[in-house]
Every structure is written in C-alpha cells, then in structure tokens.
C-alpha cells in the first residue's frame, strides 16, 4: 500500500521569508502527486499536481513543487510567504490506472509570523 509522509506537523515562518514543506511517498511505480491547502474552517483546495513531464510544477498563490523520483519526494515551496498563507497543507499520491483513490499525508500546519 502507498503511504505519504509529511515530516513536519507544524512549520512557523516569518512573513516574507521562504518556506519549504516536505513530502515523501513510498511507491515503486509511477505516481501522480498532489498538494492541497485547507484554510481555517474550509474544505481542501487543490494547489498543484504532478502527472508527468517537467519535474517543477507551478500552482496557485505562488506555490511550486518539485518532483524527485530518486528521492521519492514532492516538496512544496514558496519564495516569500504572506499572512494569508496560514493554513494546513496536505500532500497526496495516486497510482495511475485503476480508481481515483488518493492517499493523503498527515498534513503540515503553516503558521506565518508577522
């Protein structure tokens, strides 16, 4: 079974500083990878996804992620964070083919310090 590890449960960052949220997955086959964001008291919203092609993926709100097959990682980055980025971020993985079931990580709570 696939699994997703988000190593940091909480990440505090000063406003306008860069941030990296880490995600590793366990799969020996090709995968599709996703990052979702959950703002307070809301459902999850898709930030970006990697399906194939370029390993650097750009998403909404200035976020990007890099797929690294050899390290089985899909870390999320933003060069300069804002107060509005305060949220919980979830990494998810899916194997191509079959159904659309996603396996999620445990989430990383990003707190922006003014």
């Amino acid at each position: 079974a696939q699994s997703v590890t988000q190593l940091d449960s909480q990440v505090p960052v000063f406003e306008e500083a860069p941030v990296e949220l880490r995600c590793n997955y366990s799969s020996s086959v090709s995968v599709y990878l996703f990052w979702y964001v959950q703002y307070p008291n809301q459902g999850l919203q898709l930030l970006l996804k990697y399906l194939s092609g370029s390993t650097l993926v750009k998403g909404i709100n200035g976020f990007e992620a890099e797929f690294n097959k050899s390290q089985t990682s899909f870390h999320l980055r933003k060069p300069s964070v804002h107060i509005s980025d305060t949220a919980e971020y979830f990494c998810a993985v899916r194997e191509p083919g079959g159904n659309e079931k996603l396996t999620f990580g445990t989430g990383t709570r990003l707190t922006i310090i003014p």
Partner: protein
Amino acid sequence: DVKVTQSSRYLVKRTGEKVFLECVQDMDHENMFWYRQDPGLGLRLIYFSYDVKMKEKGDIPEGYSVSREKKERFSLILESASTNQTSMYLCASSLAPGQGLYGYTFGSGTRLTVV
C-alpha cells in the same frame, strides 16, 4: 466550477443515534468519496463510489455505511454513533479515470460531535 455541498456544517448527536451525512455535487462526476479528518492523522478514506449503487470500502469503513442512489448524491451513514466517531467529515468528487486528472473537489466539511 464544480461545487460539492455538504448539508450540515456542524452536527451534534447522541451516542447510539443513526446519523446521516449528505453530500451533493453538481457537475456530473462519477466518483465520490467520504473521508474523515482527525488531528495528526490527516485524511482517511471511509468509502468511495465510482458509479450509482456502486461502493467500495476505504481504509476505515467499520461503523459506517454509504448510499448512492443518484449520481449527484452520496450519503454517509453512522448506524449507531459512538464518541470515537467525533470528527470532521469531508466529501469529495472527481471525474472518472481517463476523463481528466483534475484531482478532487472537496466540500466544506461537516464537523460531527457525538456526545
């Protein structure tokens, strides 16, 4: 944009009650999912459905059942609510495989408290 609507934002139920959580999507998606979200555990799949009247167990189906009589509606049923089912419940929908890998569209969630 696809909209996924969960009928209740907050629910408080008593132990032993039968609880229905309703989810409706308006964009003709084939797949629908129920997850529960708990601090430190992330999202865990309870059940999913890839067609009307079709359902499959997810990772934690015990104590739950589902119903999908119409394509747009996917109901989660707690036959006899227990306090360990206190959680945030999230519904999601997606297109069928091969029709576009857009990921899931989520509802806003139902925070259920069982007392």
